[in-house]
């Protein structure tokens, strides 16, 4: 992607509600309007080694948004970081827009996968980590964002069970937990990953410092899950 200096202005976290408002026509988006906003911001702002210029670099970090529902926060962050032109945001969901209500990697600059049907990102993330390892690319890390209700899909558990014993230490999962799963048990998410040999942490999904610390902690030889708790969806 070519980026010209005159069109590049710097966007910060405080700009995200306005950028989301360009898609929804609603100016009043607080962070709580979308469960993924803070995780996405901390990842793209401070953790992921990828930008518009390195979006095709084999050595880049990969972020796979598996929970493709409600992608406004994702598009807002991609726009703030220069992947997606801000002037595309108002077209959200329209026929000529690359920005659909579920993202399509073929259309959205910077999107590593298309998503929408739940339970596909983590298995693809496993394959991505395996593919990087097979090519001797030890630096890039793979991040998959899933929702707690998304973990109801059995395909995730095929990936979780495989990745731990396979020692895929470049693979990371962030579970944004807004207590929307059906038939969930308290503490069940981290326990599930831990039982499969993952390194785990559970943090406040609105606390940027806590998120950053959890997202960057060392976990040699094991994949890592960060459960980011946010306000319950139904309360």
């Amino acid at each position: 992607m070519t980026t010209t200096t005159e069109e590049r202005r710097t966007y910060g976290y405080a700009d995200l509600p306005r950028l989301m408002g360009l898609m929804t026509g609603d100016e009043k988006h607080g962070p709580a309007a979308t469960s993924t906003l803070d995780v996405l911001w901390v990842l793209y702002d401070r953790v992921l080694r990828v930008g518009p210029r390195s979006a095709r670099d084999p050595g880049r970090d990969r972020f796979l948004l598996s929970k493709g529902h409600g992608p406004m926060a994702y598009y807002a962050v991609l726009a703030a970081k220069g992947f997606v032109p801000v002037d595309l945001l108002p077209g959200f969901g329209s026929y000529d827009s690359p920005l659909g209500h579920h993202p399509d990697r073929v259309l959205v600059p910077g999107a590593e996968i298309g998503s929408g049907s739940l339970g596909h990102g983590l298995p693809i993330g496993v394959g991505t980590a395996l593919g990087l390892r097979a090519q001797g690319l030890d630096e890039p890390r793979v991040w998959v964002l899933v929702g707690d209700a998304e973990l109801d899909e059995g395909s995730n558990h095929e990936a979780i069970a495989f990745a731990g014993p396979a020692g895929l230490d470049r693979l990371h999962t962030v579970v944004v937990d807004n207590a929307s799963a059906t038939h969930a048990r308290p503490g069940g998410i981290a326990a599930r990953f831990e039982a499969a040999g993952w390194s785990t942490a559970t943090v406040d999904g609105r606390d940027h410092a806590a998120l950053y610390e959890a997202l960057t902690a060392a976990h040699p030889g094991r994949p890592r899950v960060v459960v980011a708790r946010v306000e319950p969806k139904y309360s």
Partner: protein
Amino acid sequence: MDTMRDRFAPVVSRLLDEDPRVAVVLAAIGTDSFAAAARRHPDRVINVGIREQLLIGAGAGLALTGLRPVLHTFASFLVERPFEQVKLDLGHQDVGAVLVSAAASFDWPAGGYTHMAPGDVALLDTLDGWTVHVPGHPDEAETLLRHAVAADDDKVYVRLSAQANARALPVDGQRTHTVREGRRGVVVAVGPMLDAVLAATEGLDVTVLYAATVRPFDAAALRRAAEGAAADVVLVEPYLAGTSTAAANDALADVPHRVLGLGVGRRELRRYGTLSEHVSAHGLDPRSLRERITGFLTGGRVAAHG
């Protein structure tokens, strides 16, 4: 004679040695035959266990990093069980893979319906951009496996079967062969059905075409054959009857024609037994085929099977 499946691991193991892009993902089926290759290429021979959604999803991830994944298990667990992964993780993500199946429509009849996949090719027909190879002999399987892996980032399905013809034809991964020429009609034999079709049409004045690659369908070859003979076409396929009827109709859309699609019946037999018993039960033995082909070509009613 060895089987198509016997050729799979040796051929792909050589490809693993030759091409650093090739990676194999298995789901607990066929792992022994890749043991030596796995020792040489531990990061490119991956067994995910009995996890077929992960089999396809991980294959897609490998492809996203630039590798050429070869994914393998029984047809029922490769295409049917993780069908949404085939549709989305490969098709929608716009990445390629080579899917190599074993067990076909009823290679293991004693195993029952759970291990039968007569609908695999029909299912793939609901998706865009798949190449489908149905080899009729182990030598053809070897050739078509090489074609499949070498086909850039295409989506390719290779359907290996225990059913096979006595002799291989020189397949090229694209074109349909003319095996016999006649005037009364055109019989298209797909993959392992060729020997039965040749026996069934012995002495009949018909053209016999042989297709080991059915998608894309070689419409030009069928048109040429139908110009030289009556445009009465019989398809004999080793999977669900009628799977290629629409493709044949499309090929002949602007000429008057008739098409009869023969193959495996939809109805579940609920029988075990042997391969040849199932071939006969679906009316795919030479005698049943001859009866149905001649009945169709002479304009009579054709007994439905299955």
